[in-house]
């Protein structure tokens, strides 16, 4: 019954992907096109003959609506087209290269943040309002109190420029080059998760069933692990979907400072260069990633919280 509900829910959600993407593509397509300036505008202007050739080649001379349907027809086949800016690469190639990097950094940072954050949060909740609580949370809070673009150069100065332990940036899939970006990216998330965990853990610890569990004489450790932990991380799970998506795709600052070839910097460059195909490609891809992540979070949430019934009709 419940299982079936979850599956039905999954099917509905996946089918729902199609209208979601359609809306997404439409908004993105027209938004980027009403932005002033075009992909071939440059400080050194083009002679009209060349300009006309380029426009014709990329179909920019057609009416916008026709271009829109042409684009729709093209992406149905899974082809995002050639990049306007990076002429030697297709958008598919660029995404295929950028996403694994972003996903690795983002995924590792999220994993690190989840483990550290829930541990710190739980620990602080258990010692609520003690010196330990304040100092642990205070340290964790540094993560959200200092912007990334301050933390990152400081870390580079300390570990790379002066000590020479780690490389100052760049990317070659070695763990040494991942350490600093992952840590930098995880820091604020650790703080968020720690706070969310602490907040909901305190709430859970005051609830009746935990009191009951304690009254039954269960050891504190077991109370926390078996009864309090799951409901306490529900808000964290809610938060993790969008946070992971943001980590994977939005770490522009980190990518820039550590010179990492992820998806975020392609997007920003693409938007600034009016690289229509690249921007749209990344947006659509990003859209799919987010929808999938949110779906996973929903499943997790349902699994952790027996109160939600998806098959319920109002």
């Amino acid at each position, binding site marked *: 019954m419940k299982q079936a509900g979850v599956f039905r829910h999954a099917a509905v959600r996946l089918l729902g992907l199609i209208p979601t993407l359609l809306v997404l593509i439409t908004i993105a397509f027209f938004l980027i096109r009403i*932005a*002033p*300036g*075009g992909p*071939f*505008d*440059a*400080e*050194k*202007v*083009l*002679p009209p*003959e*060349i300009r006309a*050739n*380029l426009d014709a080649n990329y179909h920019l001379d057609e009416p916008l609506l026709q271009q829109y349907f042409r684009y729709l027809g093209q992406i149905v086949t899974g082809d995002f087209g*050639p990049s306007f800016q*990076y*002429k*030697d*690469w297709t958008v598919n190639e*660029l995404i295929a*290269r*950028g996403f694994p990097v972003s*996903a*690795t950094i983002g*995924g*590792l940072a999220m*994993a690190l943040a989840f483990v550290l954050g829930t541990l710190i949060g739980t620990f602080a909740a258990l010692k609520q309002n003690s010196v330990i609580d304040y100092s642990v949370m205070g340290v964790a809070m540094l993560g959200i109190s200092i912007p990334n673009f301050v933390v990152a*150069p400081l870390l*580079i*100065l300390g570990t*790379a*420029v*002066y000590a*020479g*332990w780690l*490389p*100052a*940036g*760049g*990317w*070659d*899939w*070695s*763990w040494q080059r991942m350490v600093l970006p992952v840590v930098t990216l995880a820091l604020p998330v650790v703080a968020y998760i720690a706070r969310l965990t602490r907040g909901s853990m305190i709430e859970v610890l005051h609830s009746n069933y935990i009191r009951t569990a304690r009254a039954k004489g269960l050891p504190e450790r077991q109370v926390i692990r078996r009864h309090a932990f799951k409901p306490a991380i529900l808000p964290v799970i809610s938060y993790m979907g969008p946070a*992971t998506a943001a980590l994977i795709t939005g770490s522009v600052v980190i990518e*820039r*400072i*550590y*010179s*990492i*070839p992820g998806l975020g*910097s*392609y997007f920003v*460059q693409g938007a*600034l*260069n*009016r690289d229509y195909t690249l921007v749209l490609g990344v947006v659509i891809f990003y859209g799919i990633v987010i929808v999938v992540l949110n779906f*996973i979070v929903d499943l997790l949430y349902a699994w952790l919280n027996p109160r939600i019934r998806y098959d319920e009709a109002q």
Partner: protein
Amino acid sequence: MFARSCSVLCCVMALSACGDGQNDFGRPQGKRAQPVQLVLLEDGRPAPEVLAEEQVVYRGNGEEPETLDPHLAQGVPATRILRDLFEGLTAESAAGDLVPGAALRWNISRDARTYTFYLRRDLVWSNGDPLRADDFVYGLQRAIDPETNSSAARTLLPILNAREVLAGELPVEELGISLLDEFTMQITLTGPTPYFLGLLASPVAFPVHKGNVEALGDQFSKPGNLISNGAFVLTEWTPRVSIVLEKNPRYRQAETTLIERVVYTPTEDRAAEVKQFRSGALDWTNEVPNNQFKWLQANYPDELVTSPWMGSYFLGFNLTQEPFIDNPSLRMALILSVDRQIITEKVTQFGEKPSFALVPPGIDGYVPFSPEYADWAQEERDHEARRLYEQAGYSEENPLRVEIRYNTSDNNKKIALAVASMWKQALGVNATLVNEEFRVFLQNREQKLVTQVFSAGWISDYNDPYSFLEMFRTGHGRNDYGYSNETFDALLDEVGTERVRARRERLMFEAERVLMSDHVIIPIFTYVTKRLVNPHLKGWQNNVMDHHPTQTMFKLKSSEMSSAEKNP
């Protein structure tokens, strides 16, 4: 998702294991090694005993190159790499002087319109195929062919019929390019173009391997596919990570090329680039951050290199809108009251030269125009500025309100701030800053509807003042000033047909004088290039073009062998 990142992690390990095992993050701060004294042999080459064992250069390269197709590339990062990969009919020395490249010599006809090139006989492509004149003819035709869709082709417009071919009115065979025999070719131009030989050293005029291009289409410029004829060949290209070139053993000067490998790294963030340099990961930075002159000079005096560049920074007036339409006194007042000394000393700091005209000095022997006020003291200028300001009908009670528009960049911002503050202090002008993203900014400039004063600047493609003057012609695509002066246009027309160098220069000087006395721009300074260079790296020279072929470079070994030599 976790499963995915795990599998990614596994291939991470695999990849790092099969890499070349380079776990060397360079020389940490503090124990910076000094190079040995450079010893030159009689033929001017460095003595073998002073050379480092590992001849690898790591160069920061600004943005990710847009392409490695020589005919499509326009940006500095791409063309810099292409100059290492290919060689044109002409080439540039380390000092930026024009030298014979693939062409051993050339003749120029008396009307200065026809160039005949005689190629070297022993040239080969990097795959061993012979390189002949028809490869160059094919290259130029491909660059201009409308099918290629090259924006860079605009540089080749001096070639006869290029415009018509681009417009699709004539076939590419009608271009003024002809093959005389296997080793001889001729190029005909529409008019005398003194800088044409220089253009031939730029990527858009490079040859490409016809068989390769036709077989591979748009994939031909990928690593493994690209066949080139220069000092290096392309071996790796990971977008946004690095482009690796290796020495081309078949290059005609392979014997004297010392660098074995060049690694170009994109460096979008200047502060991050400097940190990479300081950690030893780079030998050569693309730029350095703006504010740090004093600090770098104190801490990296041997590494910091600045040198004049052929570019000018100025602010433009929109002459088609209020308040500047038909208001030369007001424009002059604003021009005078900018204290260029303060801007170059306190704001830009890196040795930029205050400027009072358009064309920077040092371009192919041209001596720029210098207005009378260039020799005045700033108080005199301010005094005169106040007089003109009042003459234009403004005063303290009725101050000028004006917008300074600039595209987002740290330097633009600081210069705009400085200028606004100078106008306020000297004249009481109320200037507000408007900061726009680049494409929006360009479009606003072009439309000339909302702009008043806007930041501008020009870094020339080629070593000729005409490049600067041209954009003030009536109707030129980059004439965002709305400037139109018949005398000026006529002078430029004459420049286009003049064959005698001295007369041509005089005409350009006269045009610049006309332009400056119409008060169209506020000259601020002329650019410098600024970067950090590993003192071990030698064989390059400062030049106004800022072209630095890796071919002539080499690395010295360190004087303290024990501690500082990089372990392999």
